């Protein structure tokens, strides 16, 4: 299996499981695409969480303020009408659980990975860019008409040569 396929499968499974278990919501998965180059301007809520080890990268969620409030309302069972600390915290935890699930799926193939504390940004007309120009895998998830973009980028870090023997030889990852 290619790393890209593994990431897409894992991201889809993790997001569906987190929405189903923690929010009691069935999300619809859209078409996955890849993203590289200059970032687009963002409006709304964006979260980031770092992955580090023999492979390193970032996981990210992006959604509208309305979707962020909806997620928080459902997760905490309290009405949220504006982006506040509770809403940002709920998005941070959603990021932690979804990308944490991806991390757990990847570890048998890529070796142990560390997960950072998530960061959440809320604003208008801002751009985000990761250093290194890595390709992001982007999968949209839909709760009715509201969308949540889940993104992951992962590249081999300098430690990976020392880690090479940990990789399962039956798993054909394309680097």
């Amino acid at each position, binding site marked *: 299996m290619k790393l890209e396929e593994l990431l897409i499968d894992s991201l889809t499974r993790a997001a569906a*499981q*987190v929405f189903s*278990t*923690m929010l009691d919501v069935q999300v619809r998965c859209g078409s996955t695409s890849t993203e590289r180059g200059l970032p687009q301007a963002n409006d709304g809520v964006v979260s980031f969480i770092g992955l580090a080890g023999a492979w390193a990268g970032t996981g990210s969620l992006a959604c509208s303020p309305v979707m962020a409030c909806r997620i*928080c309302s459902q*997760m*905490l*069972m309290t009405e949220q009408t504006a982006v506040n*600390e*509770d809403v940002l*915290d*709920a998005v*941070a*935890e959603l990021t*932690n*659980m979804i990308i*944490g*699930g991806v*991390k*757990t799926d990847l*570890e048998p193939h890529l070796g*142990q990975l560390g*997960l*950072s*504390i998530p960061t959440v940004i809320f604003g208008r007309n801002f751009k985000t860019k990761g250093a290194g120009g890595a390709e992001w895998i982007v999968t949209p998830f839909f709760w009715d008409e509201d969308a949540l973009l889940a993104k992951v980028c992962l590249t081999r870090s300098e430690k990976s040569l020392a880690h090479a023997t940990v990789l399962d030889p039956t798993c054909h990852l394309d680097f």
Partner: protein
Amino acid sequence: MESDILVVDDSAAIRKILQRVLRQTGMSIRTIHEAGDGQEALEKLKTTTIDLVLTDINMPKMDGLQFLAAMKSSAECRHIPVVMITTEGGETKVAEAVRLGAAGYVRKPFTADQIKEKLAGFLETALPL
């Protein structure tokens, strides 16, 4: 006998969810205390009688494994059961938690039933489940 529980997680959202889930389990609970990291939890343990600790692993200042190690090296706290509730599902982290003395392990995302099942051996049931 009613129990006091300490929930340790840097996410206020998870602390609120656990407050709700624990109240729904039917367990006999007096107070659910909260801490945002391991350091704050250790301070809480100095001043409060706690019967059970639920803790995350990935937290700032002092993570859940460091907190667990500190608790188990303390004569006053080592008897308190600690259940890890975390996104860390890798075998290495689970093995480390068990080696340090964790009494149980629940992976996020979790259901109320999973929490209830995991805690059943540690807390008395106040209501028929």
